[in-house]
């Protein structure tokens, strides 16, 4: 590693977050949602607790190694074989430490699992190897694949230096666009094998299980572009199904939604323009295919709260 690179790494750790991508760092990102901040805090808390325990335990070990060496003439104290008192102490203290970790952890967990009162619901479906997003109740749905420059460069012995590709492996053709400061519920499923939808800056990671729907939510508080990746081994191109979420202002979102809707309507008017659905694993989840069609999603999940103001703005 060159000195410049080391400097760059250090700068990444200390420096501010860039608008795009993960910060190059040693540590978990703080992220841009209330939950991600809490999770980061929890992570740092347990990390420092472990460090403190390590200081004591490793300290005692190092001291023993240094002090009680035979070569320094140490004489073993063969009577030191047990002591109920210390055994109790070093059972009880760890229990107390664990409780002090468990309490905040439980609190955060309960918040993470509370998906009520979402203002926008998006169905996310994993495919080998791309994602499909459905804005429930909005008649909008599209696939999201890895962007072409990355896809070309990532081929075996492509000869293209990944360093010359912007956001290598972490850019898509169609980003997931969501409004800022909005509780967005994602309903995650898969069509073939298990995938997992992860956006580190939101601290959201949920498996996409074929035949079942998992829920998660986030409320991004900062406009920006946040990448993520599939994090469940899903076959050959598991490394190549990125996620990119673009958080925009509420106004921009409304505009985007309107444009997108218009485009969809046009596409529907001219049939066959709709991209063909990828090969389905029909036996595995026969209903999934139907569910991806907009008609099946109208049941009770649409989100009128947001749809109404959007409509008003048009």
């Amino acid at each position, binding site marked *: 590693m060159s000195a410049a690179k080391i400097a760059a790494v250090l700068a990444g750790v200390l420096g501010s977050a860039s608008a795009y991508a993960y910060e190059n760092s040693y540590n978990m990102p703080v992220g841009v949602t209330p939950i991600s901040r809490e999770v980061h805090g929890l992570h740092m808390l347990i990390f420092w607790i472990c460090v403190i325990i390590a200081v004591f335990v490793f300290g005692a070990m190092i001291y023993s190694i240094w002090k009680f060496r035979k070569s320094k003439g140490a004489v073993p104290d063969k009577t030191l074989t047990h002591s109920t008192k210390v055994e109790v102490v070093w059972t009880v203290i760890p229990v107390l430490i664990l409780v002090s970790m468990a309490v905040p952890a439980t609190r955060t967990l309960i918040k993470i699992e509370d998906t009520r009162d979402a203002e926008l619901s998006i169905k996310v479906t994993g495919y080998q190897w791309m994602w499909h997003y459905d804005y429930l109740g909005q008649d909008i749905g599209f696939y999201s694949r890895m962007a072409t420059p990355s896809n070309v460069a990532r081929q075996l012995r492509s000869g293209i230096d990944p360093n010359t590709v912007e956001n290598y492996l972490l850019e898509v053709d169609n980003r997931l666009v969501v409004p800022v400061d909005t509780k967005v519920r994602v309903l995650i499923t898969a069509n073939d094998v298990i995938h997992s939808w992860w956006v580190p800056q939101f601290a959201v990671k949920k498996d996409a299980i074929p035949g079942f729907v998992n829920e998660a939510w986030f409320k991004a508080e900062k406009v920006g572009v946040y990448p993520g990746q599939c994090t469940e081994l899903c076959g050959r191109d598991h490394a190549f199904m990125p996620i990119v979420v673009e958080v925009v202002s509420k106004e921009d979102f409304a505009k985007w939604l309107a444009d997108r809707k218009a485009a969809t309507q046009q596409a529907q008017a001219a049939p066959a323009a709709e991209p063909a659905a990828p090969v389905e694993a029909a036996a*595995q989840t026969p209903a999934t295919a139907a569910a991806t069609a907009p008609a099946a999603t109208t049941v009770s999940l649409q989100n009128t709260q947001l749809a109404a103001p959007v409509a008003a703005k048009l």
Partner: protein
Amino acid sequence: MANTSTHVAHDADHDHKPHGLKRWLFTTNHKDIGTMYLVFALLMFFVGGAMALVIRLELFSPGVQFVDPGFYNQMLTMHALIMIFGAVMPAFVGLANWMIPLQIGAPDMALPRMNNFSFWILPFAFTLLMATLFLPGGGPAGGWTMYPPLSLQGGDSFALMIFAIHLMGASSIMGAINVIVTIMNMRAPGMTLLKLPLFCWTWLITAYLLIAVMPVLAGAVTMLLTDHFLLTSFFNPAGGGDPVMFQHIFWFFGHPEVYILILPAFGIVSEIIPTFSRKPLFGYDAMVYATASIAFLSFVVWAHHMFTVGMPLAGQLFFMLSTMLIAVPTGVKVFNWTTTMWRGSLSFEPPMLFAIAFLFLFTIGGFSGLMLAIAPADFQYHDTYFVVAHFHYVLVPGAVFAIMAGVYYWLPKWTGHMYDMKLAKWHFWLSTISVNVLFFPQHFLGLAGMPRRIVDYNTQFTDWNVVSSIGGFVFGFSQLLFVWIIWKSARSGAKATAEVWDAQPSGLEWTVPSPAPYHTFDKAPEVR
């Protein structure tokens, strides 16, 4: 074939060894079988390690330079299966075979023919497994966890992988039965359970774990098999099943499995540290109870591998809390080892060096394990290199270092020769430094967002991957020293005394000459 029973009489000549290939094929001698297990494990360690080096080579820089992504997944899967089922577990069984009869004063293992059977199944099982790499479509590529539906997409390798796992399971169960029966039935008079050396204790408990969970793994992979070939719907939601159900069954096996990989290591370390501290183990009883508690708890924590599958909140809480509890008995062990060194008289022969490295580095792995147990935080850690760093810390400088410590501890007893201490210390320092260079940066990678099981990564992860790969190659090639040291000690070297170490190790194994005669304790020794 009836004549086979005619040669089975008690030989008058008790040091008579059969010669040639037949000795190894037909043997019922625990020492021969132990040796075969250990040699096999070493071989598999290099095969699995070579696959790890393929992984590290590909990950040396971003872009896909060397292997096809599908082949990468095969390497990943085979690496893990070979290391776990082919290297670490057989190495422990090999040590058990050599040492348990010597430590409890038994003439051999309780069921000697079955003992040989459980060994010889392994080479055949791994032949089946590795043969898949040469099939069209290659080997299994769904990760060692074999989650459906992905693993059901496997090609020709699928059935072979499953039958190979069945065979490994059968071998482990037979090995475990042998250990239990030997320890429960063949102890020398006076060797009460609470006088049992800790290596025997930890192995006894490990054997119970094995018998309880290997059949569950067999059941899980059998369901995969029938889902694939016989149209059953265990893991198919369309028929009312659930892919996640496989994960529950798998991890019901899988989590106790990781303690199967560490409890015997605890036992080895508990033998070595007192010896080279010249002081009895601190808190023997507590050690036994802690081991038993860990084993017990290991049955109720499995779903900490599945926090992201969408379990109900109550389930997540339960598995988070029960997992955290495991830190308590494990802590008791760490503290007891530390206190054993406290006010001792320490010397630093190679076994002790490896044991001390184990103490530090296993504890680091334990700390990261505890972090993973915190469910909300695990949403960020899960399936990233942070997890990879965690389990390699507990497996490589944990389990593997303990095996090396055990080999360096007992090698003179096996070969009758001392080995090259200086070279062994080189081996130690090279391994210990490089293993940290290899795995420590993976914590950073994981936290910064690099998922595991990927063949290629964003350029921001380059630096630490370079470091890790360099560490990997240095660590890998350092292990050639290990082979060389063992090889040399097997053929030559200073004559070892019965006690081997001037630290006056305690235990029956040090009362027999070095090398241990082919048959030992024909007459049970008296233990006071």
